[in-house]
């Protein structure tokens, strides 16, 4: 029956004639929507009934003590870890739990890992060129030529990341901070809608932190950014909205001031962190 029905359906005869689906539907506001997500490893609940919503164009900071589930949360969003229950949606159209890692990456979720990995023998420009969205099969790559828009895109990202003057230098000679920016730049070349950034300022100098803060706040609006960070000073300098994770679920959410004055937060996290700082 269903076969006959599908054959008699005249509005969609051929798949290739169907209109291309617009990648991400954010008409309802949120770009990332997590509801009641739970993951346990050998009985230990790394994520426990976590619900989190990130709006399109928002810059969100996630803080929390070690073991609060920050990295596991990133793993779930990028498809590396499957939750035991709950829902994760990208926009209102894409159920991330039904997709694998490459599909999620192609959809526009970029992730920056803690340790920067760039191609040291290649120049900054070439690093960005390789990361650019393109036909990445062998022969198209062999005959690939940089066209005007691609060049402009690379220049734009070089400008954004403050690496314009380093464009011809090998990535291997960059400072630690510059490598981090280059890696963020490489993610930006893929025009992600949502950028997940894991501890971007670990090991950075004060000036480098300031530059990183400028970079990340500059990105917000154009794309949504989720930053996981330990450094409270840094979080204060960039965050409009902060989410505090504790034992796998959201403990508090709000502006930095609200969160800082929340007695539960002070108890589990900020208090001791302030003393340490």
């Amino acid at each position, binding site marked *: 029956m269903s076969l006959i029905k599908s054959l008699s359906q005249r509005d969609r005869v051929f798949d290739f004639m169907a209109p291309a689906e617009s990648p991400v539907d954010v008409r309802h506001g949120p770009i990332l929507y997590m509801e009641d997500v739970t993951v346990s490893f050998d009985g230990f609940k790394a994520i426990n009934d976590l619900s989190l919503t990130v709006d399109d164009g928002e810059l969100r900071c996630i803080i929390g003590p070690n073991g609060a589930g920050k990295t596991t949360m990133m793993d779930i969003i990028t498809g590396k870890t499957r939750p035991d229950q709950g829902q994760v949606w990208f926009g209102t159209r894409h159920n991330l739990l039904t997709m694998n890692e*490459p599909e999620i990456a192609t959809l526009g979720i970029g992730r920056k890992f803690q340790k920067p990995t760039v*191609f040291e023998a*290649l120049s900054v*420009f070439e690093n960005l060129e390789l990361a650019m969205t393109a036909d990445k099969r062998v022969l198209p790559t*062999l005959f*690939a030529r940089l066209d005007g828009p691609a060049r402009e895109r690379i220049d734009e990202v070089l400008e954004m990341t403050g690496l314009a003057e380093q464009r*011809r230098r090998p990535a291997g000679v960059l400072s630690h901070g510059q490598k981090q920016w280059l890696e963020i730049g490489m993610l930006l070349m893929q025009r992600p809608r949502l950028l997940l950034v894991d501890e971007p300022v670990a090991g950075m100098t004060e000036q480098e932190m300031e530059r990183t803060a400028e970079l990340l706040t500059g990105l917000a609006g154009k794309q949504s950014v989720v930053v996981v960070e330990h450094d409270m000073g840094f979080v204060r300098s960039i965050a409009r909205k902060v989410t505090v994770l504790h034992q796998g679920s959201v403990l508090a959410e709000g502006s930095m001031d609200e969160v800082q004055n929340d007695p539960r937060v002070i108890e589990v996290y900020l208090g001791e962190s302030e003393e340490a700082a």
Partner: protein
Amino acid sequence: MWLTQPFNERSTQLFLGVLLAAMTLVTLLHLVVPAGHPLHVNAYTVNLFGKYLSYALLAVAVDLVWGYLGILSLGHGAFFALGGYAMGMYLMRQIGDRGVYGHPELPDFMVFLNWESLPWYWQGFDMAWFAFIMVLLAPGALALVFGFLAFRSRVTGVYLSIITQALTFALMLAFFRNEMGFGGNNGLTDFRDILGYNLRSDATRLGLFLATGVALAVGYVVCRAIVGSKLGRVCVATRDAEARTRFIGYRVERFQLFVFVVSAMLAGLAGALYVPQVGIINPSEFSPIFSIEIVLWVALGGRATLYGAVIGAILVNYAKTVFTGVMPDAWLFALGAMFVLVTVFLPKGVAGLLAYRFKRRRNDADAQEVTP
């Protein structure tokens, strides 16, 4: 166009200029300067230079995979020898009924082994075009199968080096066997003509020398075009951070396979040009030691430069000719000493000495490329 891109690079222009000048000079000194004059280059020496040039092409092929892709192949002698055997089979068929036994079709060694007819895999080699295609196809096919299995299983580093050694060793043992139909221990020899020209005449030797020079130039330009393309940058990225390259969306094993096959074909071409110049191909070309020696040439000349591989191959083989003439026993010590000295004092090889200048030139070229 893609293949003409390298001609815009100063280093390629310089390389091709030097090669062309050397080829012209040798030709003139051979043809114009009368024999007996101290500057005269005799046919033997022309032949020797031709041999060096085919080694140089082989070294370029190895540098392509080792220098840019990070795959240390210790089995490239196998591809070289396969190309050589394909050419040798053609040359054997060219002998026709002029062999010792005078059989119109069978090569001498088959008559000697009492074979009745030509094995199927010898069919077609009487036609030059077929043989010349097989020169590229046979090593290419071996590299395709071997590379597909190795790269798909993500075998890299020292393990890959070891299995490439095993590959060439296995082929050596196989080709030693008479039943294989490739002349066993003695290999293929007693060649007479190539494309109707007598192989022993001076003119043919000069022609082969020049053909090898042209093949080296073409091989060099092809490699440069690959290395200078986006694919070349993906290769370098793979060499330095394979997982990361995979992560940004490149199917690394396919890139490795493509470059490996191209390299094997170039090595086969080098072998095909080598065989008519030395007049013999036998299983010793498959020996693991030879494949290691090629890597030494590249290391001495300077890895990941291509022209360094050419310099290294010519330098080491010239030294080998001199040493084995003067003090045959001392050659291996000299080779070892050269390798140690270069590793200690010139870690980037002979090409490293020139690198500073070329680097500036390359940056200029890039500047032109980026701001058209």
